[in-house]
Structure formats: C-alpha cells, structure tokens
C-alpha cells in the first residue's frame, strides 16, 4: 500500500512541472521576435511508477501506480534538413547579390542611354567632322572638332577607370571579409567557442538549445559567404568545411584555422567577389571590350587621317586613347587646296560604322548580363524566402500557440493545486477528525 502522503508528492511534481512548462512558454514568448530563435518545448514524461507488490490487490497480481509527471527534456524544434536547403540557397543568393551589385555599378559607369553617354559623344564626334567638311577653311570648326575629340577620349578614360575601380572594389571587399578580424575570422572564432560550450553542456547531459540556435545562425551567415558543409563529430560539436577548406575543427587546439587560402571556386559571395575581381570577371572583360572600341576608333580615323595621326598611335586602349591633332594639324583634304574636304567627309562617313556598332553591342551585352543577374538574384531571394518561411513554420514562435499553452499549463497548475488541497483535506479528516468518537 502507498503512503498517505504519496498523493501530495504526485501533486507537487505536477505543480513544479507545469510551472517549468510555463517558464518555457514564457521563454518562447519573450523570444518571439528574436532572429534565429527556435521555439522550445518542455517534453513532459510520467515519472517512474510505484510498484504495488503482488497479493495486495484483489486479483493477487501486483500493480503499478503512477507517481506524477516530470520534465524529461526541454527540446528545440527545428528541421535540420531545411537548414541544409536554406544554406544552399543562401550561397546562391550571396553569389547573385554580389554579382548584381557589381553589374549595377558597371551599368552606372556607362550611363546609357543618355545624352552624355559614349554613344552620344561618338555621334557628336562625327558631327564635328561633318562640320569641318562643310567649312574646311574654318579654323573654328577644326578647333571645335579637337575639343569634341578630347571630350570623347576623356569619357573613354573615365569609363575605363571606373571599370578598374569596380573590379578593385570587389577585391577589397573580398580582402575585408577574409582578412584579419574580418567576418570569416570573427564567425569562426565564435563558432569554436560555441562548439566547446555545446560539447561541455551535452557531456553534462544538458541540451544547450540557445547556444545551438546561435551556432545555426552563424553557419547561416557563413553559408552566404561560401559553400558550407557541417559534420557532427559525435558529441554535438561540429566540424565545418568552408569554401573548400576545413574552417572549424573541434579537434584542433584553437577550434578553428584562419587565415587559409580558399579553394578555387568557394561559391557564395566570396566566390562571386573573386570572379568579379578577376581578369575574366565582367568589369575587366567589359573594359577590354571597351579597349576594342577605342582601338577600332583610333585605327579607323588614323587610317583616313593620313598626314599626321589624329589619335596618338601609342594609345589604343580606353585608358590611353588620346588626341594628338591640333586645330592646325587637322587634315581636311588629301591635297593642299584650302577647300578640299574629302578626308573630313570620309571620316564623317564612319558614323554608324564598326566603332558605333561595337559599342552598341557592348552596351547590349552589359544590359543582358545585368538583367540576367537581377533575375537570378530575385529567384534566389524568393527561394530563400520560401525556405525561410518553411523554417519559420517549423521553428518559429506562434503567439497564438503560446497563449494556448499558457492557458493549458496554468490550468494544469491550478488542477494540481486542487488535487493537493483534496489530499490535504483527506489528511485533515484522518488526522484531526478520526478517533474522536465520544469526544
């Protein structure tokens, strides 16, 4: 038979457990708006039953009498598979975002289609040659031509410089992220610390939910920077491979290794930045294609301008193209007569020719690539959003749900208290009112 106080103990367990469950609910509500937080759940479990020995009940068999409830664990609700998907998409998004930003700057450098773009300036350059052809004797027209040509070459140089700067910016950003005290190092060192704390807690049999949330959040951030893969080393500590190298390894003394040289295609934002800064990246590719336009212009004009070069023959890139002709040396005709305009006429005829076409094709290519990048970014963004929604669906805090839980546990607490009162009244009957016959 059980003790008269057995029921009191059962009720006490009920009170304590419901209270603890209320605390967990309170923690969830408090963190309803915390980024990276996974909702927690108190796992309630009946405690070990009291074994009623055999022969003590009518059937002669023994029985197990329930002894109440306890919190078996406080677990974090999260779907690791969604984390994997989320990180894969974060990597694409990091790549697409860096690419879109850079291409946006490249488009800005070209400033087309406007009245100040290179296309409009080329048009003005041909206009100036036509004006010279209309008035070959006029020094004013030739001086205007030289000024127009100088403005044109200055524009070539400005765009070339901007493209160089855009590639350099990508390199600078890469260096800042991967450098000493950069994002990668900060995250890695925090992850190493978390690994230790989580390992210790798990060793003590605890579930360090909030530390794990923080670790997941940091790995999400790493995933945006480069390809990440996570391996559990068996004690809830993680080895994290990052961009082709092992970044965090619990078996090393410091827990992480940085700086390291990433693989050739690290993926993510860093992969995109490496490519954007490289000679085969868009900025420098378009710069060399702009060089092609400059080369074509210099060749086309100088071939017709036979007396002395109009453009500096040494400057055949967008950065070095320069006008050497002056109002006095501009050649208008092939002979010496002042009214001859065949050379000016022939150069004006270059309008709409290979130089203009090369440049237009270049602008169209930039537009196409930039448009594709914007689309890729928007796709990656919506995929990340969709997966984040599913993650939130699993791990996010629903206030309605927590309010319901609040009522549930409050009622549980109240009912446990009522049970205790009932048992107390039983004891009161036994202790104070029993054996008082005749008193």
């Amino acid at each position, binding site marked *: 038979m059980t003790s008269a106080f057995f029921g009191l103990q059962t009720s006490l367990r009920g009170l304590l457990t419901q209270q603890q469950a209320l605390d967990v609910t309170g923690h969830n509500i408090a963190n309803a708006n915390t980024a990276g937080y996974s909702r927690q759940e108190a796992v309630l479990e009946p405690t070990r039953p009291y074994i009623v020995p055999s022969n003590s009940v009518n059937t002669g068999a023994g029985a197990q009498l329930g002894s109440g409830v306890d919190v078996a664990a406080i677990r974090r609700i999260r779907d690791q598979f969604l984390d994997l998907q989320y990180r894969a998409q974060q990597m694409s998004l990091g790549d697409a975002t860096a690419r879109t930003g850079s291409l946006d700057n490249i*488009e800005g450098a070209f400033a*087309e289609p406007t009245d100040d773009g290179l296309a409009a300036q080329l048009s*003005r350059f*041909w206009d100036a040659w036509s004006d010279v052809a*209309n008035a070959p004797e006029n020094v004013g027209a030739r001086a205007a031509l030289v000024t127009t040509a100088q403005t044109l070459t200055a524009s070539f140089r400005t765009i070339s410089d901007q493209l160089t700067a855009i590639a350099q910016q990508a390199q600078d950003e890469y260096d800042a992220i991967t450098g000493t005290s950069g994002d990668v190092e900060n995250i890695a060192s925090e992850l190493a610390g978390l690994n230790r704390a989580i390992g210790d807690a798990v060793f003590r049999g605890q579930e360090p939910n909030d530390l794990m949330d923080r670790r997941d959040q940091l790995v999400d951030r790493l995933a945006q920077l480069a390809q990440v893969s996570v391996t559990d080393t068996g004690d809830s500590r993680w080895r994290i491979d990052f961009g082709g190298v092992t970044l965090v390894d619990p078996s090393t003394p410091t827990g992480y290794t940085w700086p390291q040289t990433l693989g050739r295609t690290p993926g993510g934002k860093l992969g995109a930045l490496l490519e954007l800064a490289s000679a085969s990246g868009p900025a420098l590719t378009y710069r060399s294609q702009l060089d092609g336009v400059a080369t074509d212009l210099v060749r086309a004009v100088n071939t017709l301008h036979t007396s002395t070069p109009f453009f500096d023959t040494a400057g055949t890139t967008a950065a070095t193209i320069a006008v050497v002709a002056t109002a006095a040396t501009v050649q208008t005709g092939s002979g010496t*007569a*002042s009214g001859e305009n065949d050379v000016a006429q022939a150069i004006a005829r270059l309008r709409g020719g290979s130089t203009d076409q090369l440049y237009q094709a270049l*602008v169209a290519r930039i537009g196409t690539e930039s*448009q594709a990048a914007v689309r890729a970014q928007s796709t990656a963004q919506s995929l990340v959003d969709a997966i984040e929604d599913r993650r939130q*669906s699993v791990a996010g805090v629903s206030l309605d749900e927590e309010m319901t839980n609040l009522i549930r546990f409050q009622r549980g607490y109240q009912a446990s208290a009522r049970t205790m009162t009932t048992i107390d009244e039983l004891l009161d009957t036994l202790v104070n009112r029993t054996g008082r016959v005749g008193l």
Partner: protein
Amino acid sequence: MSMRVTTLMSSRATLRDLNEGLGRLARLQGQLSSGKQITRPSDDPYGTSRALALRGELGGLDQFQRNVNDGTGWLNTCDTALGQMSDVLGRVRELLVQGGNDTAGPAERSAMADEIDQLAESLKQEADVQYGGRYVFAGTATDTAPYPLGGVDRYQGDAGTITRAIGPQVELPINADIHQLLGDGQPAADDLLLNTLRDISDHLRGSTPADAAALRGTDLQRLDASVDVLNGIRADVGARTNRLAVASARLSGLAVDATRLLSDVEDADMAQTITEYTTQQAAYSAALKAGANIVQSSLLDFLH
C-alpha cells in the same frame, strides 16, 4: 496537416509584400517622372541597343540636314551669280547686234567696246562671288579669287570638286565649273567667253570689213555657244538645288520616323503607365490595410 503559421512568418510575409509593392510603385514613379521606360540597359537590353542605334541615326539625320542647308546656301549663291552672268550676256548680245549694224559710227562702236570691257569685268566679278568667305567658283582653292579683278583673264582656281554629305554614303558636288564658261582669255585662244568678249571689243574698235563680218558672224555664234554653256551650268545648278530640296524633305521625313521609333522604344506609354500606377497604388493600399489587420490581431485580443 496544414502549414503552421507563426507570428514572425506573417509579419515577414507582410513586410516582403509591402516592399515589393513599394518597389513596383517606385519603378513606375520613375518612369512617370522621367518619361522613359528605359533608364539603364538592364531594363531592356534589346531596346537599349535599338535606342542607341536610333539615337545615332537621328544624330546623323540632323547633321545631314545641316549639310543640306549649307549646300543649298552655296548653290543659291552660285545660281544668283549665274543669273547675273546671264543678264550680262543678254546685254552683250544687244551690243553685239547693234555693233554689227552698219549704222553705228566709230565713236559709238568705241563706246560699245568700252561697255563690253566693263561687262567682261563684271562677269569676272560675279565669278569671284563668295559664300561664307569662300570663293564658290574656285574649285577647292576656295581662298583664291578665280578671276582677280583688274588682273589677267586666266582662271586661278583648280578643277577640284566640293561635296556635301546629304545622306548615308551619299555625297553631292555643290560647286559649278565656271572655267568651262569663262576660259582663260585671249592668250589661250580657247574661244570661251572671256576670249570672245575681248575679241568682240577688238572687233568693235577695229574698222576693217573683216571686223564687221566677224561681229555679225563668228562672234555672234561664239557668244550664243557661251549662252548655251551658261544655260547648261544654270540648269545643272538648279537640278542640284532641287535634289537638295528633295533630300531635305526626305531627311525630315526620316527624322520624324526615327523620332517616333525612338519614342516607341524608349519613352514610357503615359496612359498605360498611369493606369498601371493607379492599379499598383490600389494594390499597395489594400496590402497596407490587410497587413495592419493581420499583424495586429492575436489570441491576446480575446483572452481576459
């Protein structure tokens, strides 16, 4: 099981939708205020390259129009001068017919000869006419007077051709060859106008029967031949003026077409954009209203 919807999820979704709506509104607002539907190449890469090509074409058409105007001015100057020359030749012919009559006395004939000499000088003066400081009848030697007044009768210009570009790969010569009319005077004995006039003047001053016969015979024939040459040059100049007028009209037409095409490619369709803007604005307001309601209500409102 239906999807579990959490608090953060609905607020995130609301915020995302509001952001997207605002982004669409901002894009349309940009189109409305700039009047352009292409503000950067990625808005429409193909449209951008079309716009660049059309802008280039339009710039070219403007320039060709300027060239045509310049060429028309030049040819008009030529035509006026040639008209004056025509009048001069009329007067010469009058004098020649009078001088060929036996009724004219030596004094009268000498006066006629003086007038012929003056008329020859005025022909040279017309040949020295300038357009914008350039001698129009000197070939490409536009800084040289073709027949300097008071000088010899020899042509000082060259045989060069001056052209104006009036269309893509189309160039029209705008100068007339006055040398084939006026020639190089008596020393060259080329039977051209200046030579003829000097001969007529000599024949008027001369008193031999041969002089009188020449006045009535060969001089008149040579003069008439020169009149034909002059008429030919005037007709040619007139035809080229007409061609420029036609080119000008065609260039204006092409410019109108190119402007319209460019506007189709580059400009925002205001009616459509405004309609779209209004629609987006309504959608955005609805999203705001709905968002305000969704995010605000929770079980808390109903528990006491």
